[in-house]
């Protein structure tokens, strides 16, 4: 392995299903590739393949991850080059097999080959704590734990963080996987009135550094339906939030956005009026 290249394996995980792991994987991989890094995104959700749909390459899947693990084909035969971003490749999961088709040695072999070709390897973990999720996190250098602002999602993420600190290759040699917290489907207005866990609450429970907050946005569903990651739509809130995540992942200090309630113009006016009135009352 070329040590100077310092390729990084990043697992996108959560424990709970439906929180936005695949959406985040596709956006983070696309974002890193747009920044000029050679990036591959690997779908570990064997039997429930979805990443190809998010990336819009479902009609181009010929060979898959399991074919490479089993040695049926060469790695380059299974990799699909993204049509929008030149540095990006996708390694899709098998839809006809299950997670037992993965083996630790097989995954290790594939990741070693990927480390030689790419700067970033994004592993899209399946939900749960079964074999697929375990193998997705086992080789990770960094982990992005995706959480929705709801208590069940936070608890599952806490469980995953426990596994990351004990069941990874890094943990076995006494090192630590670098952990990041990504909150998705956040609605600042609902958090403000106590209908949803706030960013502060989630960060306090999970006690790991926050890498980003993705606001609840209709654009995410639209983007996934057309097979184009929402980060490719910079005019949307979610697209901008994912771009911020990429900047933070690359070490830049970007201010957190979309965490305060949106104020309507009339509300701003009303607040100014209220402030004036209270000041008047104080004077009186």
């Amino acid at each position, binding site marked *: 392995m070329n040590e100077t290249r310092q390729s990084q394996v990043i697992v996108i995980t959560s424990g709970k299903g439906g929180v936005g792991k695949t959406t985040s994987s596709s956006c983070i991989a696309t974002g890193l590739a747009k920044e000029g890094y050679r990036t591959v995104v690997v779908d570990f959700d064997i039997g429930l393949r979805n990443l190809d749909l998010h990336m819009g390459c479902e009609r181009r899947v010929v060979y898959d991850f399991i074919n490479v693990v089993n040695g049926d084909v060469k790695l380059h035969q299974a990799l699909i080059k993204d049509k929008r971003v030149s540095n990006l490749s996708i390694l899709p999961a098998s839809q006809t097999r299950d997670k037992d088709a993965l083996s630790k040695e097989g995954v290790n072999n594939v990741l070693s080959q990927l480390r030689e070709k790419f700067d970033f390897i994004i592993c899209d973990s399946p939900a749960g704590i079964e074999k697929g999720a375990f193998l997705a996190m086992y080789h990770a250098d960094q982990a992005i734990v995706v959480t929705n602002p709801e208590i069940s999602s936070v*608890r*599952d993420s*806490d*469980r995953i*963080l*426990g*596994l990351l*600190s*004990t069941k990874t290759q890094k943990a076995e040699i006494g090192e630590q996987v670098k952990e990041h917290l990504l909150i998705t489907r956040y609605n600042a207005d609902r958090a403000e009135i106590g209908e949803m866990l706030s960013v502060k609450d989630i960060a306090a*429970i999970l*006690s790991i550094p926050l890498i980003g907050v993705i606001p609840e946005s209709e654009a995410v569903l639209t983007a996934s339906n057309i097979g184009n990651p929402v980060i490719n739509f910079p005019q949307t809130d979610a697209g901008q939030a994912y771009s911020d995540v990429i900047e933070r992942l690359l070490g830049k200090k970007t201010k957190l956005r979309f965490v305060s309630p949106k104020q309507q113009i009339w509300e701003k006016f009303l607040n100014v009026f209220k402030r004036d009135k209270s000041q008047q009352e104080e004077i009186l």
Partner: protein
Amino acid sequence: MERASRAFNVKAFMYNSVVIELVSNNVSDINKQLTDTKRQAPKLFENQATILDFSKLEATTDMPSLETFKTMLGNNGFSLIGIHAPPTQIESENRNNAVKLHVFNQLIKKQAATQKTQPKTAHQAYIHCGPVRSGQQIVKKHQDVIIFGNVSPGSEVLSGGHIIVHGALNGKAFAGINGNEMSEIISMPSRPELISIASRYLKAPSRTQTTNQYVRFTLCSDNIVIEQII
């Protein structure tokens, strides 16, 4: 050379069990109390491994059969794994059973008595830095446990001595698991799932924590007492 295939692995295992110390042999009273206990914490006692302790019972002729105890416990979700100080009738019934229950020679009470009379050499406390995550378990049978971090819901801390948490204790804490009734649990404001000191337990204390004061759980006359300190 081909290795012989293994039929099983031998592994160490520790499992929490409850001791039901019988003070009456009245079947209806026992059944009623079991039902009440189960109702207080259904999930906690679901399939709970249970040891039946006969040491406090007077030897009588109208002792219910072992099968009756098994059925009673089973109906209430408890799983009987052993007996302690069984009367002759229960012991012979167990001996004649195809699947015998384990007969425990010594339970925690006796160990507690020796601990009170014979002060032991101080053991070094176990210090854990960082959060205890959901699903994780810290077990230190002969040490105090000090944690710098939060104890998440779904995690467990078991200690033979004290448990001190410099963070929120939102999981389960078992202090004095060897029967040391002097053990204490101290934590920052939190909502623990379960507090246990020397086998006495307090489930989900509903105290609303609004201050920054530490909370101390101690055992006083078989009851767990909560007080705010510092």
